[in-house]
């Protein structure tokens, strides 16, 4: 799962520590998500997206190809 957290952080001039404190996680978790080592839960993904005031799909990009309902 790709994400744009780093870009949004840079746009808002935020450090990983600031973002982590704001959404109630460890700084290492933000780093792990940014480096795509950890896929956040839906809850955390929504928290991050809402913190920057964007939709979840603007922040996280689901890369795996899954069949849609029209294809099946």
């Amino acid at each position, binding site marked *: 799962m790709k994400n744009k957290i780093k870009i949004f952080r840079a746009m808002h001039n935020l450090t*990983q520590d600031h973002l982590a404190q704001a959404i*109630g996680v*460890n700084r290492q*978790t933000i*780093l*792990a998500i940014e480096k795509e*080592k*950890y896929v956040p839960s839906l809850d*955390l993904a929504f928290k991050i997206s809402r913190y920057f005031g964007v939709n979840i799909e603007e922040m996280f990009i689901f890369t795996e190809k899954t069949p849609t309902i029209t294809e099946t």
Partner: protein
Amino acid sequence: MKKNTFYFLVGCVALVLLLIFWYSIELHTSLFIELAFIIGVILIILARSKVTDRVDDERDIKITEQATIRTMQIFWIVFCLFSIGAVMELLHIPEFPRLSPSMHPPVILPPRLMGYIQLGLLSMMIFLYVGFRIYYAKKYGEFETDEE
């Protein structure tokens, strides 16, 4: 309570438990160490809830969860192996006369050996847990370097 104070307290509890363990061995009674172990665990749990500068987020929980699951999976296999053998000796099922004409007396495991086996199992569980914890912490980006 600060995180470092908590770690210091855990160290003190471990040291006291070790001393009580020694004392229990001297007295040949396990009651002291068993009670002390329960009290020690309760004390650590209570102290952990008072730590203010520690955040247990979902990634930490996932690492702990995965390490625990994998440890238990391996532990169950080893424990069942040992238990099956012990139960077989306990039941002492008669052997088939055609296959083995000579009946030999059942091997009874001495308590000291049982203790060593349990110690081995306990040590194995601790090493497995620590190993899996390091593995999953690495997998979920715990040791990633930061360019900030």
